């Protein structure tokens, strides 16, 4: 028996095709800010609106990617991924608030407006350090990561899986939402953070800032995609898949599935945090509504619509659902929920593998 027969075969055509789709998506997106500079009457002109809204979609795509890593590969259906996204967003928001400095309404040199207003005398300890970009970026990853570590360790160790895990993660994001709504928490309550001025010395309300954030998001998306691609291509990725399909069996092979799942869950939470951090300066607001359980479920639906278990599927799902939502909330403001709800029903019933499954079906 020659060794050549057992050589790992080249990736299948479908897989290559999907990667090509991803490449095309990235390249097309990359041209948006450039085409935006064309004169308005040009056929190729991309409006400011489309640039800014697609910057937002890219952040959603990163969130979908992170969720797909946890759900599609490791079988951890988190209904609380919005919480990691929001925590990353809050960490970035705190940095942006500190950067406002004395430009706030009340002109206080250190305290953000809402603190002045609620009678704070000094900055709460957990706000310290956020004036440094590097520290804030670290927190963008660490805070969601730590939360995922603690929650994941508790859950995976007690072998909480499936539906139970989903409900616990949902309760987590719900509890966080209630807590962040409290003004006494020191995070601005319902209003959250708004009225950001600048980031890294760049005023935020300019086209240049929008383009920079857009490219930062796109680079992050590509980075996260490549990271996930690499990760799922290693033996670790195969262990995850094995855990997803038959966790007990993996244990009997001698793998400590708790640490494997934990690793994936924490990595996923950090990616979600990164997505949130990129999202906040682009939309200009972060408030506890981001923790709402509905948001997390929506993110799961993007992945389901795109096709769970394929990275490209998650990205496509995020773009298509959000694109549809943006269009329908203007085109059919009263009826869009029917269309979207109907889409979710149809996808789960008829396209269990999502849009990517449809492509795969064609390919065969």
């Amino acid at each position, binding site marked *: 028996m020659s060794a050549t027969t057992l050589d790992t075969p080249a990736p299948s055509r479908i897989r290559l095709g999907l990667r090509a789709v991803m490449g095309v998506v990235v390249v097309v997106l990359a041209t948006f800010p450039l085409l935006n500079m064309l004169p308005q009457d040009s056929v190729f002109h991309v409006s400011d609106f489309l640039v800014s809204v697609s910057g937002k979609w890219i952040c959603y795509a990163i969130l979908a990617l992170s969720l797909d890593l946890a759900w599609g590969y490791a079988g951890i259906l988190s209904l609380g991924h919005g919480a990691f996204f929001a925590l990353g967003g809050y960490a970035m928001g705190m940095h942006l608030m500190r950067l406002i400095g004395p430009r706030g309404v009340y002109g206080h040199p250190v305290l953000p407006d809402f603190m002045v207003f609620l009678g704070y005398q000094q900055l709460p300890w957990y706000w310290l350090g956020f004036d440094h970009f590097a520290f804030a970026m670290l927190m963008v990853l660490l805070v969601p990561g730590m939360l995922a570590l603690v929650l994941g360790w508790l859950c995976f160790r*007690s072998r909480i899986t499936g539906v139970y895990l989903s409900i616990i993660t949902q309760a987590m994001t719900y*509890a966080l939402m209630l807590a962040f709504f409290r003004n006494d928490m020191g995070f601005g309550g319902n209003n959250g953070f708004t009225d950001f001025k600048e980031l890294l010395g760049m005023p935020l309300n300019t086209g240049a800032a929008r383009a920079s954030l857009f490219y930062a998001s796109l680079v992050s998306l590509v980075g996260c995609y490549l990271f996930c691609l690499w990760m799922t291509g290693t033996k670790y990725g195969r262990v995850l898949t094995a855990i997803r399909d038959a966790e007990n069996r993996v244990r009997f092979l001698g793998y400590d599935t708790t640490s494997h799942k934990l690793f994936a869950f924490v990595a996923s939470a950090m990616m979600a945090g990164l997505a949130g951090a990129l999202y906040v300066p682009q939309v200009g607001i972060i408030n506890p509504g981001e923790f709402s359980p509905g948001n997390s479920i929506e993110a799961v639906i993007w992945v389901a619509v795109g096709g769970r278990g394929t990275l490209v599927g998650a990205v496509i799902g995020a773009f298509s659902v959000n694109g549809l939502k943006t269009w329908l909330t203007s085109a059919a403001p*009263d009826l869009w929920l029917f269309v979207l709800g109907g889409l979710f029903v149809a*996808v789960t019933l008829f396209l*269990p593998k999502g849009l990517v499954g449809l492509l795969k079906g064609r390919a065969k």
Partner: protein
Amino acid sequence: MKRTILLLFLLLAAMPARAQDAFLAALPGLGGGFGAQVEAVGQLGTLGDPRALPILTALSEGRLLRLADGTLLIRDGTRLLNAATGAPVDVAEADTQRVTINNRVRGALRGALGQLQIISPNSAERLAAADAIFRARSAENVPLLDAALARESVPEVRDRIALALAASRLVATNPADKLAGITALGETASPQARSILLEARAANPEVATQIDAAVAAIDQRLAIRRAAETLFQGLSLGSVLLLAALGLAVTFGVMGVINMAHGEFVMLGAYTTVMVQDFARDIPWLQPWSLPIAVPAAFLVTAAIGAAMERGLIRHLYGRPLETLLLTFGVGMMIQQAVRLIFGAQNREVISPPWMQGTLMLPFDIPVTANRLWILCFSLVIFGLILAAIRMTRFGLEMRAVTQRRPIAAAMGIRTGRVDALTFAFGSGIAGIAGVALSQIDNVSPNLGTGYIIDSFLVVVFGGVGSLAGTLIAAFGLGVINKMLEPWAGAVLAKVFVLVAVMAFIQRRPRGLFPQKGRAAEA
């Protein structure tokens, strides 16, 4: 009875002409500004002229009208009567203007009506009058109340009159009266009595020690009562959680279907209540029954929708619980938006029947609100019925058989598809019934269900999936804990603590308080 009528007659006959003139003189004030109204009402109350009663009642109920020339009229059904003479008048209502009042007038009215009604032959009216006098308290009422107390025969009314007398004596000038009032008030467990005592403390430094003692005695009783109240509040919150969770305990606990549209079924139940009520609005004999009728109606409506959803959608996804979750979320979105388009986004009004309004007194003077007490009882009844349906009927047997060993049940000739549909319909129907109850305490709006879905899931998981008794204990346990924490932590943090505690508990015991027994549960 006869005695009272006689008394009325005597009172009227003995009324000096001067007083009758005073009555007529006071009357126009009722149609004046708020200040004039207060004065006139006070005069009419003190005069004790029974003719004032219908006029003042009309004023408090918004049925007193005024003509351009200042003449006062009473609207009695469709007729208009002259307030002073009681004779019917022939005036179009469009030519009149309603006499409006404010809270100050309303307070004065209550006192005056109390003074007038305390001699009423109707014991309920006398009771209300005693309460009104108690709140209005004035030293002038002492003789009136003394007389009323002497002839009162109904013990309950006697107690209230005695209390009103005590309160009135407190503001009297006679020190002995004052002390008697303080002692009598100190024997109650009433926060109003406490409030009245404290109010009197500043004005009467000479009896401060007695007042302090009386307040301390009340406080002690109140502390016990407060504990009982907290317990009731907790049980009441628990009953709401239980109602919201029971339907899930069937669809999720027994069938394993994650129905994110559960909250929408609850909401549909509430809207059914609204529709039944609107339907009954024009049928007087039906009106009081609209809520009882809404219960089966809501059950049928939501059960039918549930059955359709199970047959049409969910059955294709058995064994894929997480996908069911996504599907039902989509369905929930559509139901919510459909309701919004059909009924409007605004809250819909649900009228509480009289027996669900106000406060009831349990033994030891523990006040409980009627609607919450009814809902508490209702939740227990529904729980009992569900238990009976599952344990004692053929359907329950088949349901348990199918959920435990589907292939074997099928082999024994049970039509599993039908049982699935019925079970899901049953669970959905219960959600609808919950909606009827919740319409009595919460908004009836398209968003009604959203607020309950997470709590419901937690209750079911906390209690132990598949265990109805677990759901019951979890709901009441969480309700009581939440209410005990609330005074310290505030409403939000209390809820956050409870959520975190439940999450921590599930870590320790992933299968909840009452785990499903046996190996089957581990599959």
